[in-house]
């Protein structure tokens, strides 16, 4: 770790409140006294009980009563202390710039008023604690979370934060009632484009009003869910292409923040092959579907992605469907899946490694060329 001789942008760092009381401190009544799920719930948690990478818990301890439990003293949630996170990322893991993505479950709550109030608290916390203060504020970039179940409120929230110099993207939940191509979402895309910000879509934590995670209902194992759920982007992307979203918003950029970019290749081959006759039904998206990928679609490259670190053809695979220009390295810090540049396929060319480690992110987020940490 930290051995990289070139800049590293970590496009996927998850940030949290220290605990529920900490979150409630950012809410106003009546929402402060409402009931809502924690980001960590027992439903489909890792069976070994290890949710987060060792050593990522915040040092500050708080005493309180967890839901249904006894009074206890616990450390702060992993990913909640900017000093610890900054030290681990920038001093120990060789990261130069980290894009922060607040993890919540507000985007899948039934009461959209409550969801929007919680997101507003997250955004204020993100900006105050991470982007505007602390030792590492100049290395952090932030994701503003908005609620797709409250389009007007989401647009207002985007406009509230869009001019902050360290806000670099909008965050939306992967789980929705409708795919993102539906016209209902258009004001969101318009606001993002007008703000000049890409939109990252990430799986919402906790539990809420979600459809089952597969077309055949719930999974029986954690492994199955973990491997499958990031692929959910396929439905959103196919629907956005066919609905002409990228035709209507040529500046729109979407980041699929849970990875699974490998699925892009077979599904876009399929959509192109099947598109030839079907384009007659969608004149609002007249190009062959793969023509809508470049400069529109990005993926975080996570621990489960790619053909494996030792695959000899990993460079060739990365070129297919132009994936080398769509991928952003993301560690998923502090998740149990957390990975590092050392885990990337060895067969990638130096140019490919450079693109995934920082060039694509620098282009997408308009970052100044990051200075190597070791320089």
């Amino acid at each position: 770790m930290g051995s990289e001789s070139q800049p590293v942008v970590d496009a996927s760092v998850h940030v949290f409140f220290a605990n529920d009381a900490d979150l409630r401190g950012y809410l106003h009544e009546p929402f402060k006294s409402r009931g809502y799920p924690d980001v960590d719930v027992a439903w489909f948690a890792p069976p070994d009980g290890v949710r987060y990478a060792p050593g990522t818990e915040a040092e500050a301890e708080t005493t309180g009563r967890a839901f249904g439990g006894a009074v206890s003293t616990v450390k702060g949630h992993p990913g909640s202390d900017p000093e610890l996170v900054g030290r681990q990322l920038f001093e120990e893991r060789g990261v130069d710039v980290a894009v922060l993505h607040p993890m919540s479950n507000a985007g899948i709550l039934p009461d959209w008023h409550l969801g929007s109030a919680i997101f507003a608290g997250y955004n204020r916390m993100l900006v105050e604690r991470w982007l505007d203060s602390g030792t590492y504020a100049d290395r952090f970039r932030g994701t503003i979370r908005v609620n797709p179940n409250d389009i007007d409120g989401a647009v207002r929230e985007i406009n509230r934060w869009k001019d902050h110099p360290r806000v670099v993207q909008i965050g939306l939940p992967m789980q929705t009632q409708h795919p993102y191509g539906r016209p209902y979402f258009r004001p969101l895309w318009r606001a993002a484009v007008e703000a000049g910000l890409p939109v990252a879509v990430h799986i919402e934590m906790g539990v809420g009003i979600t459809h089952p995670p597969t077309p055949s209902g719930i999974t029986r194992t954690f492994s199955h869910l973990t491997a499958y759920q990031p692929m959910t982007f396929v439905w959103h992307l196919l629907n956005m292409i066919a609905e002409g979203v990228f035709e209507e918003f040529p500046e729109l950029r979407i980041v699929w923040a849970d990875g699974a970019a490998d699925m892009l290749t077979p599904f876009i081959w399929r959509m192109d092959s099947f598109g030839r006759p079907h384009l007659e039904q969608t004149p609002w998206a007249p190009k062959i579907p793969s023509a809508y990928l470049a400069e529109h679609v990005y993926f975080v490259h996570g621990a489960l992605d790619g053909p494996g670190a030792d695959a000899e053809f990993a460079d060739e695979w990365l070129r297919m469907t132009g994936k080398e220009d769509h991928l952003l390295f993301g560690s998923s810090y502090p998740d149990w899946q957390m990975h590092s540049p050392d885990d990337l396929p060895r067969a990638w060319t130096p140019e490919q490694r450079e693109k995934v480690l920082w060039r694509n992110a620098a282009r997408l987020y308009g970052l100044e060329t990051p200075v190597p940490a070791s320089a």
Partner: protein
Amino acid sequence: MTIEMQRPKTLSTETTEVRVVDSDIHPTPKRGELTPFLPAKFRSLFENRATGAGSPVYYDAPDFAHSFAMRTDSFPADGNFAGSDPDLMFRQVVMEAGCDVLILGPLNGGGQTEEEHHAVTQATNAWQDACWLDSEHNWHQRYRGSIVAAMEHPEAAAREIEHWAGHPCMSQVLIGAELRPAWGDPQYDPVWEAATRNGLPVACHLGRGQHNELPMSPVGFMTYNHDLMVSYSMLAANQVMSLVFDGVFDRFPDLQIVFIEHAFNWLLPLMWRMDAVHAKRGPENGLKRKPSEYVKDHIWCTTQPLDMPEDKLEFTRALEWMEADKLLLFSSDYPHWTFDDPQWVRKHLPLHMQDKIMYQNALEVFKNVPSTVPALPGQKRPL
């Protein structure tokens, strides 16, 4: 360009080697043809429901009002639907396209309860036996049938499999794709048990269900036939994960599953993905082997729809990386509008995989498909 087919009085005694096995082809009953095969208690019920009923289609293939999602040249002259005339199918698929053996996969839906679903499968199996696999319609010995089974009613499905398993022309079990939960659930074990006991592969064909079994995605419904049909592969990808992670192949080490018409290029990254999660969390699921090894030993996909990128070399490379010669069975999907011609499919496969995918794998999977058949003068032989 049609070949006149006079049905010969006697079949040639000369034989020819099977070079193309078509594992996805759809016979359909002529109007009223299925009714006599239904259990008596359902005949009037089904007819009453059909009275005054119009089209149920709401994701429509291109030019649907004229094509009905079929090859428009596959409608017989008698006014019945495409796929209803055994002689026309024989002419277009065997003689003109050059498929040697056809694994028929009827898709007669219609049940609402598990008992009704089962009744439709009983009728469909008896109808295949009487109207397609009989010596008059199968005089050329090129047709093989599917034991259609209702996964909604696993015990009855297992009995139905036992009932037909000895039939010389029934080559596989056929189930629909959309039922919830996924195939790893132990409730389906009687079906896998009956199929493996009789050496039959189980083929799974998409057919469209209702409501959340349409299928519905985790993010709601697609807008067009285009995004729906492309995303159908996500359903199959989930079934593969369910079969593997839920241990079905450890419970049934002889089980062979054939995914029909779900495309297949997604299997390559899916295997990587399953192996990656297994490497991190393997012991949790009690699997004996790496997920990709189960896939290569137990799972088949049919070739149609054969999706390719502009750069055909990329497709070739993907086939090599996934070891497609261990995964694919040729299929045409006749008479559907997405029909793939065997000669066209063959020429897009790497040379060393062509025979395996076009017929050798099928001879291994379908135990009663012969390697030679009576010759047919004038039959096209795809090269």
